[in-house]
C-alpha cells in the first residue's frame, strides 16, 4: 500500500482559519500560565480567554464549585482583571502560545459590550471576539441578554459595529427555543455561533440546609449537559447556515465527533481540561485516528454528516472496518 496523506484538519470558522477544529473553551484555561504546556495549547486550533468585563470584578463569594453527577456547577461570577488588565497582562501571554486567541467579552449593558469591543478592536495578537451573552442584563431586570432575540440582537449589533475582527456569539441554552436566538445573532452580524454555554442549575447542602453555592444558582457543565448541547447544535445547523462551534461535555474524540456530525465545524473543550489536562490534545489525536481509520481526507467532510440527506457522507462500502479509537503511537494533529 502507498503512503496515504494525512487527513486535512484545517477549518475556517467565522473568519478565522484554524489549523484544526479543537479549541480551548473560555473560562477553563485561565490566561495561559497555569496549563499551557500540559494542555498542549500550541497544537490546538484556537484558544478563548476567560471572559472579561469592562472593569475588574472580584467574582462571587465561595463556595464557587460543586460536583454534580457527571458534571459540575460553578458560580465563579466572572472574576476577571477587566479590559485594561487583560490587554496589559493576559493577552500578551496568551498570544505567545501560538494558536489564534479570542477574547471573550461579557457585560451588563449594551454599552459594556461596546466599550469592550472598541477596546479590543486593535489589540495586538487578537484574532477575534467571543460574545458571552449569559450575563444578566441590568437594563431588563437582570434577565440575561441571551434569553431573548431582541436584546441579543442589540448586543451583537453593537459589537459588530465596533470591530472588524471576527465576532463569534456564544449562545445560552437557558431558553425555550434556541433557533430564534441563533437567527437574531446571525442577523446582527455574527460570523459564527458557539453553543452551548452552561445550563443554570442548583444544588442544596442538606447538612447545612442551604444552597451548595455561595451565589445560589450556578452553571452546569461537563458530560451531563452533552445531550442538550448536541441537540441545540443539531437544531441550529438545520435552521441556518453559519459556522458553529460545538461545546458542552466533550471529554474525548468520540464526543467531539458527535458534535461535528451534528453540524459543528469546530469544537471546544472546557471542563474536561480540569479532569485531564491533556484532554483537548487527546481529542485532536482521536479525530485524526478516526479520519485515517475511515479513509477520510478531511474533517470538514464530517460536518453535519449525521443529518438526513448527508447520505454521501455515509461510510463507503468496502471501507476498512475501523477498530475504534485506540491510543495512537504518536499524535500528528499538525
Amino acid at each position: 500500500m502507498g503512503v496515504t496523506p494525512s487527513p486535512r484538519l484545517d477549518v475556517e470558522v467565522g473568519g478565522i482559519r484554524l489549523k484544526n477544529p479543537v479549541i480551548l473553551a473560555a473560562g477553563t484555561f485561565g490566561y495561559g500560565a497555569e496549563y499551557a504546556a500540559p494542555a498542549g495549547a500550541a497544537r490546538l486550533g484556537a484558544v478563548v480567554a476567560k471572559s472579561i468585563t469592562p472593569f475588574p470584578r472580584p467574582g462571587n463569594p465561595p463556595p464557587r464549585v460543586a460536583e454534580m453527577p457527571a458534571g459540575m456547577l460553578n458560580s465563579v461570577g466572572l472574576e476577571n482583571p477587566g479590559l485594561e488588565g487583560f490587554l496589559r497582562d493576559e493577552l500578551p501571554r496568551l498570544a505567545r502560545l501560538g494558536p489564534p486567541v479570542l477574547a471573550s467579552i461579557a457585560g451588563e449593558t449594551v454599552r459594556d459590550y461596546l466599550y469592550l469591543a472598541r477596546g479590543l478592536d486593535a489589540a495586538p495578537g487578537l484574532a477575534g471576539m467571543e460574545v458571552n451573552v449569559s450575563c444578566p442584563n441590568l437594563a431588563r431586570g437582570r434577565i440575561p441578554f441571551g434569553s431573548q432575540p431582541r436584546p441579543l440582537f442589540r448586543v451583537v449589533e453593537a459589537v459588530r459595529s465596533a470591530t472588524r475582527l471576527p465576532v463569534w456569539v456564544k449562545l445560552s441554552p437557558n431558553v425555550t427555543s434556541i433557533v430564534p436566538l441563533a437567527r437574531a445573532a446571525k442577523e446582527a452580524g455574527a460570523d459564527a455561533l458557539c453553543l452551548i454555554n452552561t445550563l443554570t442549575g442548583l444544588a442544596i447542602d442538606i447538612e447545612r440546609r442551604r444552597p451548595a453555592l455561595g451565589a445560589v444558582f450556578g452553571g452546569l457543565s461537563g458530560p451531563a449537559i452533552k445531550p442538550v448541547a448536541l441537540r441545540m447544535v443539531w437544531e441550529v445547523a438545520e435552521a441556518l447556515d453559519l459556522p458553529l462551534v460545538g461545546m458542552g461535555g466533550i471529554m474525548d474524540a468520540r464526543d467531539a465527533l458527535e458534535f461535528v456530525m451534528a453540524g459543528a465545524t469546530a469544537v471546544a473543550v472546557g471542563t474536561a481540561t480540569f479532569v485531564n489536562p491533556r484532554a483537548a490534545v487527546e481529542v485532536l489525536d482521536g479525530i485524526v485516528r478516526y479520519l485515517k481509520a475511515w479513509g477520510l481526507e478531511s474533517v470538514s467532510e464530517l460536518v453535519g454528516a449525521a443529518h438526513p440527506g448527508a447520505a454521501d457522507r455515509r461510510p463507503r462500502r468496502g471501507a476498512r472496518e475501523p477498530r475504534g479509537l485506540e491510543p495512537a503511537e504518536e499524535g500528528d494533529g499538525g
Partner: protein
Amino acid sequence: MQWGEQAPGRPLWRQVLGRVLEQRQVGPNSYLLGLQQPWLAEAGRPGQFVHVRCGQGRDPLLRRPLSLFGVDPGEGRVELLYQVVGRGTALLSGLRPGMDVDLMGPLGRGFPRPPDGEGLCLVAGGLGVAPLVPAAQAWGAGRRVLALVGADTAAELLPEVQRRLVEAGAEVQLATMDGSRGTPGPVTDLLEGAIAREADAGRTGGWVVFACGPSAMLRRTAALAQSAGWPCYLCLEARMGCGVGACAGCAWPAAPDRPGGRFVRVCRDGPVFLAQEVGWWE
C-alpha cells in the same frame, strides 16, 4: 509525563501516574495510600497537595485534592492519608497494590521552613493533621516541636500519625471533643494552654504555628496566635475545580486590608497562607 508551570515563580507540577504500593486502613474510616512516584517524592514539599483522579470514568468527574502525608525521596514514595467521605474517596479505597493512580502535583504553596531556633507548634483538627506530619518530619530536627492533635473522638486519633510525630521528635498532646481521650474539648484549648505556659515562664516568642483543620478551628487558632504574637500559617481546604489556578473555583476571601483583590485561590496562592492574609466566610 506531562508538566506545566504554575504562576510565575512556582515550582513545576506534572501529571503523573503513581503505582499503588500499599492501601492500609489506619483508623475506623481512615486510609493510608502508599504510592511509588519518584518524581513527586522528590518535588513535593510539606503543605503541598496532589489532585487525584478517582476512577477512570466521568462520574465522579472532578479530581480530589489530597495533602501530601508522606514524602520519601530516598524510596521514591509518597503517601496520602484520607477518609472515605464520598464517592471519590470510596473509589480510592478500592485501589490495590499494582494499580495506577493519575495524579497532578505537587500543587500549591506549602509551609515555609521555620527560622532556625524557632519552635514549631502544630495545631491539627481531625484529618487536618495530614500535612502537618511531613512538616514535623522535614523540620523537626534541632528544634522543639509541639504537636497539638485534636479530633471529635478517640477513634479518630490515628496511632500511625502519633507514631510519626513522636519519631520526628514532637511532644504530642491530644484533645477530643467528647473527652474519650486526652483533654476534653477543642484542640485550640491546648494551644491556649501552651501559650499560657510560655507566658508564665517569661517567654513571649520563639514559636511558629502551623495549623490545619476545620475553618472554625483555624480561625480560633489564628486569633490565639495573634494575641501571643506568634507567626501563624494556616493550611486551608476548599472545593476545587482545576487545582492549578485556572478556573477560580476555589476562591477564599482575602483579608480586608490586603492589596491584590478580594479573593485568593486556595490551590495556587495557598493552600498555606499566613493567617493575616485571609478572611473568614463560614
